[in-house]
């Protein structure tokens, strides 16, 4: 149980650091004025010391004593925390520094380093516990709920969201579609290439080398590289242009993302086939299975857990990479992020980033759940107790 308690202690340290030494946010009378930092005492009001101290005490107890059997009750702490960041957010939105006058219609509060470190600390503490992923997810939901309920009207993120809300859902959907479909498209070729590498020793170096190449080229340059042939294609083949294939936009983004997903899938498929015991494959062949039967009923099922984790890697990585589609007009959250960057509107950048991080974490979590299911279904039993026999 060493690792979880280490996580919890690190989380505790982050929370303490955020409360003691970092500004929770920045108060600005309007979008362009320079801001005033908001300390946690200002945010929490008159009970600041009691609330902050109590929270630290609770988390400290969990982090340092929680692993002991005697203090098992402390296991509840991660489940007490989900509302804390949400409430902090509400207070932040309502905070006004002493002696400042501002028009409630335009004043805005940006989140500061203190809030993010605090949130990271809380999530870390939560993820240290049993089923910690769910507790952390609950925290995320809490934040979302207060925003949806309109409890944080002055938050800069909220204001930025209201500005772009017409596009937000569409870009979000586009982002997901782009990220997931490009993985899906890469799955079959990825597995096929992995299989060829496994079957044909000579092809291996070439194929893995080529796939690796895509990974080594920075994503941006790859985008550039793909744009040129696609532009030429669109210019010279009317059908391609009609199908919407252009040097910029959806097509090159999709292509690059697919190429990028190829490596984790191929590499894992190859490793998966390779780890199947030779005696097993040999005996399958010696029983008189055809290569196709061997693949279908021996190699593939036995490699599936490893292949699956390659797909999981590809999905998480791809959700992040899809941001770059925004650069070339492919849409997605990248569109918001790069808009924010061009306007030096850091809140818009953050607004675009949060869903990406959330989606990546959620996808990873969900796919991990599926991993257990697949491994059990394929049923390579190491532990007889598990099957209840």
């Amino acid at each position, binding site marked *: 149980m060493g690792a979880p308690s280490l996580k919890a202690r690190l989380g505790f340290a982050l929370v303490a650091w955020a409360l003691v030494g970092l500004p929770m946010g920045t108060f600005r009378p309007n979008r362009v004025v320079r801001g005033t930092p908001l300390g946690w005492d200002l945010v929490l009001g008159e009970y600041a010391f009691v609330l902050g101290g109590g929270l630290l005490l609770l988390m400290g107890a969990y982090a340092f004593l929680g692993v002991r059997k005697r203090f098992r009750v402390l296991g509840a702490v991660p489940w007490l925390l989900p509302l804390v960041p949400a409430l902090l957010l509400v207070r932040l939105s309502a905070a006004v520094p002493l002696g400042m006058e501002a028009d409630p219609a335009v004043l805005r509060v940006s989140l500061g380093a203190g809030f993010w470190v605090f949130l990271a600390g809380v999530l870390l503490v939560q993820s240290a516990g049993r089923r910690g992923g769910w507790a952390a997810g609950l925290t995320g939901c809490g934040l979302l709920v207060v925003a949806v309920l309109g409890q944080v009207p002055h938050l800069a993120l909220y204001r930025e969201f209201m500005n772009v809300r017409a596009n937000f859902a569409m870009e979000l959907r586009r982002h997901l579609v782009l990220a997931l479909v490009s993985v899906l498209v890469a799955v079959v070729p990825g597995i096929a290439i992995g299989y060829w590498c496994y079957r044909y020793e000579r092809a291996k170096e070439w194929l893995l080398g080529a796939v690796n190449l895509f990974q080594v080229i920075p994503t941006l340059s790859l985008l550039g590289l793909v744009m040129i042939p696609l532009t030429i294609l669109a210019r010279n083949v009317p059908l391609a242009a009609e199908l919407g294939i252009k040097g910029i936009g959806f097509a090159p983004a999709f292509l690059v993302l697919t190429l990028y997903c190829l490596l984790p899938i191929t590499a894992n498929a190859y490793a998966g086939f390779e780890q199947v*015991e030779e*005696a097993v494959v040999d*005996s*399958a062949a010696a*029983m008189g299975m055809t290569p196709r039967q061997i693949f279908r009923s021996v190699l593939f099922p036995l490699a599936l857990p490893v292949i699956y984790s390659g797909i999981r890697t590809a999905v998480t990585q791809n959700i992040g990479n899809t941001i770059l589609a925004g650069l070339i007009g492919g849409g997605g959250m990248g569109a918001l992020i790069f808009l924010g960057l061009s306007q030096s509107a850091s809140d818009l950048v953050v607004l675009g980033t949060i869903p990406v991080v959330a989606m990546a974490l959620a996808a990873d979590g969900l796919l991990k759940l599926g991993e257990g299911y697949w491994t059990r279904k*394929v*049923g*390579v039993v190491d532990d007889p107790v598990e099957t209840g*026999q």
Partner: protein
Amino acid sequence: MIQLKQVSKSYGSQRALAGIDLEIPQGECAVLIGPSGCGKSTLLKTINRMVAVDGGEVVVDGKRNTDYAPEVLRRQIGYCIQGVGLFPHFTVRENIAVVPRLLGWKEREIDGRIRRLLDMSGLPSSYLGKKPGQLSGGESQRVGVCRALAADPPVLLMDEPFGAVDPLTREKLQLAFNQIQEELKKTVVFVTHDVEEAILLADRVVVMNQGRIVSNKAPGKFAGLLEEGFVKSFLGNEYPLRLLKRYSAKALHLEDKPPWTNPLQGGAGECLTQETNLKEVLSEMMRRNEQALPFLLQDNRVVQVEYMDIVHHLHAVSK
């Protein structure tokens, strides 16, 4: 019938088989024996084409094995791979059923077949639902043997199939194997490290060294005087003593022996039966400090077997 003609195989510069000539007649069991790395497994694999030969040819049932489609060839050759190689994601039942299913047997037939095989191997039928990960090494090997026998193939290739089984079970399996062999007369190529196993199972013992066959005879033929050299040192100086286990007292033609004349103090219980193997007979002589022992025949006659009868028998088979 299996016939290897001038078969050779190299792995890079490593010569695994160097010109093998071997003929195994229909219904015979040839046991390959030799030190580790001498090419036994490789020889076995050339037969079902798991290894492609560099030179020479292998003839199975009158046809070169390269003239069969590999799948067709392999489905009629049962193969116990060294290292078992059970499918870890299949249950024991599914593992055994692989070849029958490939051959399109009906599930009912398969069920019956599996039950009989399991009986023979001494595994309880509760094991059918287990996964290979839950079996011990010896149990896995037995399932491997069942899998090789499943579709009742006319040819069997067995690569150290009983290597990890405890001595008692191994002896039972060897007896079961001999019984099957007597009934069904398969053509078997069997690899072992164990001289005693070779003696018990073989119609002929093929001694290999460094990719060559150095000797190929019926097991009895090694009992006489051998030239000093690899075969003698490999089979061991006590080979004749070990060979005794192969024969039961029946082989001495008990009905022609003189009747027992001394009084029987312990009654009929003192007599040995004709199923006793000769090694046990010799041991019994040593135990009782006698040179002759009484044997009870089926017609209730009691005959006398002498030490020299055993010696003469060994001499006769080694001729």
